[in-house]
């Protein structure tokens, strides 16, 4: 925990803090009052609009759970396909051959630079034009393809960072006992760096889960967000209630993933046998920026961040 920007409050500071607390509570109360007033003005607070979510299991079995299932399915498929692709491109970016490095670099930078929605729209139209995938599974294919192209390139950067984070001696020692380059990678570097990458990979999963909602809004993929319209149509225009439930489900799912990533990171830092650095979960945001790599400041050794 970082020492804070203020001292332990004395009498004057306590009065000050109290004043600010009161002002803040008043401001919050005004905001809450405005929200509640405008909600009840449009009859959105009627119990009848919220009750189905607590008493009617059919809301869950017909809309919410299938939606959640599709969200998770798309996210899982995207992750499973993107991981090996990401590993491949991440390793290719570390190749000794310039043209392999350059080609992999171009592909990764390109897909990091364009919005995932553009990729999904392209995949959707491409499947419609060039393949005979039936229309009811096409949105799933398009969503997964878009997610794989984008997240594969981000994962490539995570893999690259994970491998670079290992102590140099690991690769040198492996070469010294006579391993070939691909043996060094397969037996020494990759297995060790997987541990270092785990926190970042888990938090990339949050990004993937969030992006599946794009398919619901624009491609007709029946995931969690897409269940809002039929629900509010069938349960008396309970738009606000439906959105609230969907948002809460997304938040719970992603908070679980985020705290799992944090727990993994803390565990890795504590582990005594683990010698390398950890790719911080927060580094994932950095990797969304084309032309940017994870630098040494994003890698923390077992003792905590280096160089700070």
């Amino acid at each position, binding site marked *: 925990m970082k020492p804070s920007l203020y001292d332990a409050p004395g009498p004057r500071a306590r009065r000050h803090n109290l004043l600010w607390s009161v002002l803040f509570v008043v401001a919050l109360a005004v905001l809450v009052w405005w929200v509640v007033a405008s909600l009840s003005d449009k009859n959105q607070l009627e119990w009848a609009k919220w009750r189905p979510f607590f008493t009617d299991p059919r809301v869950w079995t017909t809309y919410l759970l299938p939606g959640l299932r599709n969200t998770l399915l798309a996210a899982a498929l995207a992750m499973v396909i993107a991981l090996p692709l990401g590993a491949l491109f991440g390793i290719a970016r570390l190749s000794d051959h310039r043209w392999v490095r350059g080609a992999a670099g171009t592909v990764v930078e390109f897909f990091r630079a364009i919005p995932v929605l553009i990729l999904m729209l392209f995949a959707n139209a491409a499947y419609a034009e060039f393949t005979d995938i039936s229309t009811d599974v096409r949105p799933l294919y398009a969503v997964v393809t878009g997610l794989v192209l984008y997240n594969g390139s981000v994962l490539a950067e995570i893999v690259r960072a994970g491998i670079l984070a290992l102590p140099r001696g690991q690769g040198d020692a492996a070469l010294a006992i006579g391993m070939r380059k691909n043996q060094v990678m397969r037996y020494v570097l990759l297995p060790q760096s997987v541990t270092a990458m785990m926190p970042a990979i888990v938090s990339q999963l949050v990004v993937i889960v969030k992006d599946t909602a794009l398919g619901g809004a624009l491609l007709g993929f029946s995931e969690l967000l897409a269940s809002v319209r039929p629900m509010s149509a069938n349960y008396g225009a309970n738009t606000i209630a439906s959105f609230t439930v969907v948002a809460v489900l997304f938040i719970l799912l992603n908070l679980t993933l985020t705290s799992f990533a944090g727990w993994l990171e803390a565990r890795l830092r504590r582990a005594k046998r683990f010698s390398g650095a950890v790719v911080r979960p927060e580094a994932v945001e950095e990797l969304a*920026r084309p032309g940017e790599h994870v630098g040494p400041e994003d890698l923390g050794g077992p003792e905590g961040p280096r160089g700070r």
Partner: protein
Amino acid sequence: MFDFLEGYDLLGAFWVTVQLTVYSAIGSLVWGTALAAMRVSPVPLMRGFGTCYVNVFRNIPLTVIIVFTSLGLFQTLGVTLGADQFTSINFRLAVLGLIVYHAAFVCEALRSGINTVPVGQVEAARAIGLRFSQVLRLIVLPQAFRSVVGPLANVLIALTKNTTVAAAIGVAEAALLMREMIENEAQLILISAVFAFGFVCLTLPAGLFLGWVSRKVSVKR
């Protein structure tokens, strides 16, 4: 070869994308800074509010927020944000959604920057009798902003790409035009290439330039 572009306002669509980016960037910078100040403030209530806000809005998909601004705020609650035309209502709602979402990321970036300011600086500032607001305004934030140009650039690039989500509520920006063109024209590959190129032009130079700026201005310690 590019005659399929005729009849479409390609530059206009990208101009809307740029406008969405600029307004949302300014808004989320202001709101995100306020949130960051709350998260480090001595008032426990404000700290709690900041933490809740960040945890909630970082974990909701942006698409959910944007669709909610249209279906929930506008169509159900009648919020128009002072606009009277349909297109400008949607535009403003999209900007609102983008600000609400990205402010959480700006706040986190700033907070990590505040953490890089050495403790001695803060202690010295307190020792000469500066109040919390003065410590933050005069000592911490100026240094923090310089060290977070990189992370803020990440947010800006992500924001630029995320403006495409506004297509979900019918804002006439690049992704919506792309969808329309794909439906009406035959050259799928060329159309996609044009739009991909447009976004590469928006994000790649900005990312490289801001990366250079961040190395230039960051405080060497």
